[in-house]
Structures are given as structure tokens and as C-alpha cells.
């Protein structure tokens, strides 16, 4: 089995671990996709060769230390912003960890991502600068570009702790075609015990899908899709109203196609259970059986999905990125999605002249 494909299979079905022939390649792929910690957790308690077990045990401990650091960074941001009385919503890995979600298990967490109301940005910026964060970039074009068009402040880094913070006011660049309803998203967060917030379950998925398809070039996509798998499973099991809410929210934010694609690909790669048509209250076995047959056809990958899958699995057993043309196409696409064509041309021109 191809290397990144095998990684996905093992994440979905840890029992397949006994079929692994080449652990070195599997680990190289998992590290390259930032999924080594997640894999280590999925394989916990399995009978594995001792050397493999020792490596995975170290990966689990490393994931735990990443979790502590990420939560600490969130706490330091909370202390810096508490006097403002502004809701601070954690995003991505830090949010999953703070909310104790399954998706955080073993997940590597890089920067701290937070979401605040756009009107609060100047105050937030001032408070962070006063608490030891500094600008990373000094370039005026980049700075202006960020402030005018992007969904976040230019990145800040803490001068003592060397950790970056991305302060978002929206989940997509302002130039992107879908226009999520940020007021609704920010107005309906889930409070955590310590005065921080995370997005509601449906919005969390919407953000993860937007981040995966409408924003980036799909680098690290296998990990982002793994997040989506874990979140869908956990939310779907916890709350029978989750799937209808997901449909409603995705539609409202103009991101239903992205969410549906994420769900299809997650099901394809990670066998995620899907329940778009779930009856909210009663579940009769026979009707569900027929329903899922019918829905099955709608969960088939489309031709475009297949391209995405090709991009997501573009990694060989040495951890090398493969399929340069597919990757280039997705890179160009990522810019195309973020900006109207004229603006894109200007942006690429300014960037190119500096090379």
C-alpha cells in the first residue's frame, strides 16, 4: 500500500498495524504530515515491535508537552487580554486541546490562533504589544496588505517565549468569495472554564473545512482532515442535533460545498460516519438501512474530489513531497481563491519584484 495511504488507513483502523512491513517509511510519512503524535495515540496499547513502541511512546510524551505549551500560551494571552473584557475565542489545535476534544490527542500545535471581534482589534493589538508580543514582519507592503485584506493581524511573536500568535477577526480573507457570517460565529461561542471560548461544534467544523479548502494550498491537509474526522465523530455521537446544525451553519456561512467536500474526503480516507440526513429523534433500523444505502451514492468522490485526494496523499515513504504539478496547481489555486484576479496579479507582481 502506498505510504501516505497506509498512514490514513492506520489512523482509521489501528488493527491494521499488524500488516505494517516498513515502519521506518510509515513514521517518516507521519512526521512529514505532522501526524506522528496522533498515530502514536491511535496505536496505544497494541502489540507492536519494542522499537516501534519506544518511538511511539516518546511521540506521545512529546504530544503531551506540546499540549501543555499550547495551553500555557493561551493562558498568557488570556491574562494579557482579560482587562479588555473582549471575548477571546481559541481556534484550531489550541481550541481542541482546551476543550478536551479527541482531535487534540497527540496533535502538534504550532502558533496560537485566536478570534476576536473586528472592532476590538486595535485594543487587542495594543494589549498584546504591551504584554511582550512583537511584530514579526517589518515590511510596509506586507503590513498594509494584511491590514487591508486579510482575516488576521500580521503575525506577532512573544519576545521571551518565542511563540507566535495569529489574531483573527474572520475565518477567511476578506477577499475570498465565501463571506462567512462572523457576527453569528463570534456571537455563539462555547465558554470554557477559565474565561476563554471555543467555536460552537458546527462552526468549528466550518472553520476547519474553510481552512482546509478555501484558504491554503492543502499542505498539511491530511492532518487537517484528520481533525475533521475526529470532530465529526465526537460531535455526531454526543449530540443528535449536530448534523442538522452543521448543514444550517455551513449554508449560512456560504461554505456548504467546502464542508461537504471535507466530509466526503474524510469518509473516504478515514471512514468517518456521515449522517447528513439523520432523523433528529427516532431512529428505526430498517429505514436507516435504506437511507444510508441511498446516501451512500451521494458520498462517492466526485472527479474533483479525486484531485484533492491526489494532493492530500502526495507524500512518499521518505517523507518527500511528490507530484510537483499537482502541488503547484493547488498553490496557484490557493491564491486564486483568496483574491479577485486583478488584485492577485498586483500581489504576485509586488512579491516577484522583490525576489
Amino acid at each position, binding site marked *: 500500500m502506498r505510504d501516505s495511504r497506509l498512514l490514513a488507513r492506520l489512523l482509521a483502523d489501528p488493527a491494521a498495524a499488524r500488516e505494517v512491513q516498513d515502519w521506518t517509511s510509515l513514521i517518516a510519512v507521519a512526521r512529514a504530515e505532522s501526524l506522528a503524535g496522533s498515530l502514536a495515540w491511535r496505536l496505544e496499547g497494541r502489540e507492536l515491535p519494542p522499537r516501534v513502541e519506544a518511538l511511539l511512546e516518546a511521540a506521545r510524551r512529546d504530544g503531551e508537552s506540546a499540549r501543555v505549551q499550547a495551553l500555557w500560551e493561551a493562558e498568557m494571552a488570556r491574562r494579557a487580554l482579560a482587562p479588555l473584557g473582549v471575548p477571546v475565542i481559541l481556534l484550531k489545535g489550541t481550541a481542541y486541546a482546551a476543550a478536551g476534544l479527541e482531535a487534540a490527542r497527540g496533535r502538534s500545535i504550532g502558533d496560537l490562533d485566536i478570534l476576536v471581534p473586528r472592532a476590538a482589534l486595535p485594543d487587542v493589538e495594543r494589549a498584546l504589544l504591551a504584554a511582550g508580543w*512583537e511584530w*514579526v*514582519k*517589518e*515590511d*510596509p*507592503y*506586507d503590513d498594509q496588505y494584511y491590514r487591508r485584506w486579510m482575516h488576521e493581524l500580521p*503575525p506577532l*511573536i512573544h*519576545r*521571551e517565549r*518565542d511563540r*507566535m500568535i495569529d489574531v483573527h477577526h474572520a475565518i477567511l480573507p476578506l477577499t475570498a468569495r465565501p463571506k462567512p457570517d462572523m457576527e453569528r460565529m463570534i456571537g455563539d461561542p462555547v465558554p470554557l472554564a477559565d474565561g476563554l471560548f471555543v467555536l460552537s461544534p458546527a462552526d468549528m467544523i466550518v472553520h476547519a473545512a474553510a481552512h482546509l479548502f478555501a484558504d491554503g494550498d492543502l499542505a498539511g491537509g491530511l492532518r487537517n482532515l484528520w481533525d475533521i474526522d475526529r470532530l465529526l465523530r465526537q460531535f455526531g455521537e454526543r449530540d443528535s442535533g449536530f448534523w442538522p446544525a452543521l448543514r444550517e451553519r455551513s449554508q449560512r456561512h456560504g461554505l456548504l460545498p467546502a464542508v461537504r467536500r471535507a466530509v466526503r474526503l474524510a469518509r473516504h480516507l478515514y471512514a468517518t460516519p456521515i449522517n447528513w440526513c439523520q432523523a433528529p429523534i427516532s431512529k428505526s433500523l430498517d429505514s436507516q438501512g435504506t437511507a444510508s444505502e441511498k446516501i451512500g451514492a451521494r458520498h462517492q468522490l466526485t472527479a474533483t474530489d479525486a484531485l484533492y485526494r491526489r494532493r492530500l496523499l502526495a507524500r512518499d515513504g521518505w517523507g518527500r513531497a511528490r507530484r510537483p504539478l499537482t502541488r503547484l496547481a493547488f498553490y496557484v489555486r490557493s491564491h486564486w481563491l483568496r483574491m479577485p484576479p486583478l488584485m492577485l496579479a498586483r500581489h504576485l507582481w509586488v512579491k516577484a*519584484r*522583490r*525576489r
Partner: protein
Amino acid sequence: MSERSNIPDDDGIGRPSRRVVLALGAAAASTVVTIRPALAQTAGSVLNCEIPVPAPQAGSGNFIAADGKLVPAGTPGAYPPLARPLKGEEVKAMLNSGRAPAGVNSEAAQAYANYIRRLQAGMSGFTCYASLQMPR
């Protein structure tokens, strides 16, 4: 502080009889030092590294002022970007003994050195710079 005992002698009325002296020190003294990751130091010492001046993220068309700050191209008194990145050893010589890299005059070298001193994590060259910091 001279000494501190965990079990203070009790004189029978709930007060320690031998009071331990605690000097609070001057307001300017420093009493908290946090251990920072030394990853870059060691990683750099086992690796060959280089520093672009300036970092592409910071705008490679910009000039470097004498104090190391980036200024628009053509600013009087500022120095143009370096065509090639500086090798770790060149940077070390420049920072420690003020020796200019080949083909760079000493005032410009001063400006480049100041630029490098201002590097922050996340910018090209930072890990290399950090690795050249000799704490001892």
C-alpha cells in the same frame, strides 16, 4: 536571606522565637531567570547555516540603515541588501570582532551586524543567529 528552617522553633505562643532575616534586595535586582530552549544553540553548532540580509519575509528590496532597521530602497545613508547570504562563520567574526565579510566596507558591515542583532524568531536567519550566541 541568611537561612530558612522548615520547622520554626516555637516559643509557646505560636510565634517563631528565632526569626529568619529576609533581605528584599534592590528594586532593580533580578530574581527570576527562566530556562529557555537551547535547541537553536546546539542545532546550529552541529549544522552549517547562513543568514540572508535582509530576510525575504522582511522585504528583500529594502535597504539597511546604520542602526539595522529596514528602510525603503535608496534611503540616503542606508546600505543595499547583500547579494548573497552571510555564512555563520562570517557573522560570528563580524559580531565578535567587527571583521567585515569579504567585499563589504566596515560601516556597511556595522549596519548589517545591527540588522542581524535585531533578528527575531520566525525570520530567516534567526536560528542561525541564535546558534552563534555564545552564552559562555
